[in-house]
């Protein structure tokens, strides 16, 4: 698969890697003018917030934009124990000395990379504060422990993603943080685009199968308010298509990719199964 950077499998490589000129573009199908908005923000050095449900293409979009802008992409998946030193860096002992090691954010600031903080709401609030000075006109990162400040590289760009689901009531971003970003809304693509995505991601899928998958996904998303935390994503549809190409029966493939991972609720999975079997009779 293309990740914007031609990487050797099974080999350690640095997290900051600039896409080469010969790399093939990651596949991305624009749904609106998000490419234009992102490019404008990048030109004007404004931080960007990507909003949207899981599996609708936020990460892929960034890979694509990194390739377009020829900038390295550094992704940090945030979790609740993520501290500011995980982002900024920390002192380590080496021999008799303490050695400072830059965190991924610091490295991006220095190298002019796109730093992508995935699911930022999961992180502790104290770790999100370090980005404040980076996201306004100062574009500075303060390394408190080291007692230094870094002015960000011109090409440095901070991107966060944020999934406004119901689990975020208590963990909403502070308005003061939110309003520093340019927001781009993502949603599941329209049926035509989603069909195109599936056929592109999984070569060998027929138009008919892709159409059915998309219709199934669309109906399954109708169950959102009935206890599904996340609805059937484009990614799940791509998985299902992959399983079918690998030789599974359509109904079986859909169940494995779109029902079993989503819910343990008997009635909900029965309803999802009904939707699937109606489409793939």
């Amino acid at each position, binding site marked *: 698969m293309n990740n914007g950077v031609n990487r050797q499998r099974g080999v350690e490589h640095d997290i900051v890697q600039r896409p080469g000129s010969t790399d093939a573009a990651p596949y991305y199908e624009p749904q609106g003018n998000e490419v234009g908005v992102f490019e404008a923000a990048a030109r004007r050095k404004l931080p960007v917030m990507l909003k949207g449900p899981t599996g609708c293409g936020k990460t892929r979009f960034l890979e694509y934009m990194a390739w377009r802008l020829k900038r390295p992409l550094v992704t940090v998946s945030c979790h*609740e124990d993520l*501290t500011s*030193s995980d982002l900024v860096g*920390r*002192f380590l*002992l080496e021999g*008799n000395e*303490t050695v400072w090691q830059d965190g991924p954010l610091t490295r991006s600031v220095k190298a002019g990379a796109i730093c992508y903080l995935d699911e930022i709401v999961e992180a502790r609030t104290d770790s999100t504060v370090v980005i404040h000075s980076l996201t306004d006109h100062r574009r500075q990162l303060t390394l408190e422990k080291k007692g230094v400040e870094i002015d960000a590289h011109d090409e440095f760009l901070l991107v966060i993603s944020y999934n*406004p*689901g*119901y*689990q*975020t*009531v*208590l*963990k909403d971003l502070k308005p003061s943080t939110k309003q520093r970003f340019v927001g781009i809304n993502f949603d599941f693509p329209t049926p035509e685009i989603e069909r195109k995505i599936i056929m592109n991601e999984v070569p060998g899928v027929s138009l008919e199968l892709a159409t*059915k998958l998309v*219709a199934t996904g669309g*109906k*399954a998303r*109708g*169950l959102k*308010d*009935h*206890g599904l935390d996340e609805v059937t994503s484009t990614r799940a549809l791509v998985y299902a298509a992959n399983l079918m190409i690998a030789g599974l029966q359509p109904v079986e493939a859909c169940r494995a990719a779109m029902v079993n991972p989503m819910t343990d609720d008997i*009635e*909900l999975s*029965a*309803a999802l199964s*009904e*939707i699937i079997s*109606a*489409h793939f*009779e």
Partner: protein
Amino acid sequence: MSQPAAIEEALAALRALSVDAARAAAAVIPAIARHGEAVTASWLQAARKLSAHDRDSARAFIEGSAAAESASEEVLPWTEQAATFTRWPGCARAVEAFMRELPAAYAALGHAGERRWAELGLRWCERHLDSGRAYFAVPVRELSGRQGVAGIEQILDCAEELYESRHLMLVSYLQGALRVRNLLGAQAVTPWAMRGSDIMQAGRARGEAYFRLESEESLRLLLDSLPGFRPVERSRLLSLLVEVWFGETIELKESAWTPEKGRPFIECDGQSLMLPPVLTDQDETVLAILHSAGSMIHGSYDPDDVRRMFELSGLPVPNLGDPISMDPLFARFGDDAQRFKLLFDLVEDLRVDAAVGRNVPNHLKRMLRAGEALGVPPDPAGSYYRYALDSLRLALGQPNELSAEEQALLASVLSPQAGIAVAFEVALKLFSIAHLPEIDSREAAVLAYLPGRSPNASRAFQPRERSTDAQSGESEGEQGEGDQDQQEAGDQEQSESAEGQSEREESSETDEQQATGTGTTTGVGSSRRRAEEQAGKGGSSDKGIPYPEWDYREQRLKRNWAWVQEKKLAESNLGEARRLEQEYAIALKKLKQALQSQKPTRLAPRRRQFEGEDIDLEAAISYVTEREAGMSPEATVYRRRELKQREVSVILLADLSTSIMQLLPEGRGRLVDRVRAGILLFAESLEMVGDSYAIAGFCSKYRDNVAYYRIKDFDEPWSIEVKAQVGGLSGRLATRMGTAIRHATACFNGVSSRRRLLLLVSDGRPEDYDDGGDRRYLHEDTRMAVKEAVARGVHPYCITVDTLANEYLPQIFGRGHYLVLDHINSLPRRLPEIYLKLRR
């Protein structure tokens, strides 16, 4: 005609006993006589014996003999059997029944079978004459269940067992047992009768009703043991499917179907669907729900079409505001009414299924397959069934046996524009050309429907407009708002009247309370509460605490508009709390296990670690010095930050309006039971987690009377008294939600936690008696109260069981700040779960 001497002699002996009997016997003798002199004499002796024993039984014997002889072509065996009855006094009715069924017994069971039938019956007569009579009174075919002697033995084996174990007499349950066997098979009879004998011991009348299959419990037990798919239990799945495919919510209710009513169908009254307790399997049920919901959505009850059908028939159009019956449309066909109705249903079902097929892929194929799998019933219904299958094949473009003319007519109902009136016209035209046989009985007619289909308009219905965009295929977005408003208006009227009633009850109760001082307060802690009530009255003003209210019409806050009185709940019920704890013990245990694994176990900061966020300076210094000193210490120089308890405070605020007292649709209690259980589980989990929490409830009646019940405060322990109050929760009055939210927000004052959650548990929209029917007013006010709360650092989150809540909660609480539970029973389990998810 001269008789042989032996016969004359026997006849004379009979005459000496009864002249009437002898006269009747003389009339029968010619039929008997062909079996010989000795036989006839024996027969007369039996008659005399019976006559000496009981005149009526002799008459029944003699009168039944001719028929018995002609059916059996023998005399002695049944004569001997009849003579056996002389062993019991008062046997006339038994003999009567025996003689009446005798010919049928021979015809159905043969000679050997008849002997066994009589033997079994006589054994019961010996035991209990009434039971024997009841046995003989049952038509033999019914008794055998069309399975010959084996069928009779089967049911009597059960009887034998019941007699042995419970001393239960056949007469008390035979009729019911036969029906149970016909419905469920012989294996169901014994458990059913065992249960009945228990009930019989508890009370005779109740037991008798049970055995007549008239009591609720008998019916329930029967329905529970019916094989098949239970739509009512799976109603959540079914409503999910309706919503997925049609984008609409349709109310599903339980119908009053009982096994005697024959084939079960989903019925519809134009507003909601009525599910029978059982259908064959999931496939049929899904087809049926899609078909029935489809007929509602695709205009089978459309008022314009209904008017047109009545006009086409030249009948006066009924008032479209009242429930409408379609019967007049069929009645004018006289004897052919059933034939026309079936044909019309067939055409209309085809129209509906074609329309459903535009929503649901492969619907027609699936219906055809299910229809083929079930198999064609015997004629005359079979002709209709085949016709329906052919019409489906036509719709699918498959080869079929319909004539060109029929095909052309049926094709016209397949268009998306066709309504039920078009189907009616087509049926009128088809009626003269389709070759469908006469059909008269309802039993036969119900077999003519394909699986999933059902008689249309089997009950009177309320007109329901066709959902406009359902016609165009995809059904998303706004639709049927007109109907919904109409429906809601109806609902509101109902709920208003219900509330009005309870308001009266409530006010009378308060009067009483005022009169007696303490009212109905009983049980634990009543004196404490009384003291508090009095203190409350003395402390602040009687009016309570004022809050502003937002008036959207004037776009301003009305100052000091709504008044909150803090109260303690008067009722408490520790027993109920204990019962609920028992009932949910397993759920609670699971919950606690889950919490245990989540709970942070190390609270102190860990020093001297191999890794961590910060350097442990002390350890680092000693590490460096030790190394300098030539030792090889371990590099445990990090400090890991203390896993801090999240500082969360939560108020669980329960809506205690009248509506929570409603009975749950599937039985088994009221909504309030689930609310109580939910609160109990919630509190138990929070005790475990260690977050600080408060529990409160609210209700209202007019703006100056909003009651806020503090059930548990933040610093109050989760004590027996508090539990008992939760157990005694009940509903009253209305829902002024905004004011309650404002007051709860104020209750967070003085709480130091940074994360503050206000968890609302509700079952309906904000409403109060003085909102003048303007729903928007309290909606807007609640929305404003939520906004104010957020501004003050409190996050309101609403959990509701009102399935219509998707219409108003997004506006009030905002996306992602509410949850609609589509199944009430899941509330207890989900409540703690949701909270834990929220605080994660």
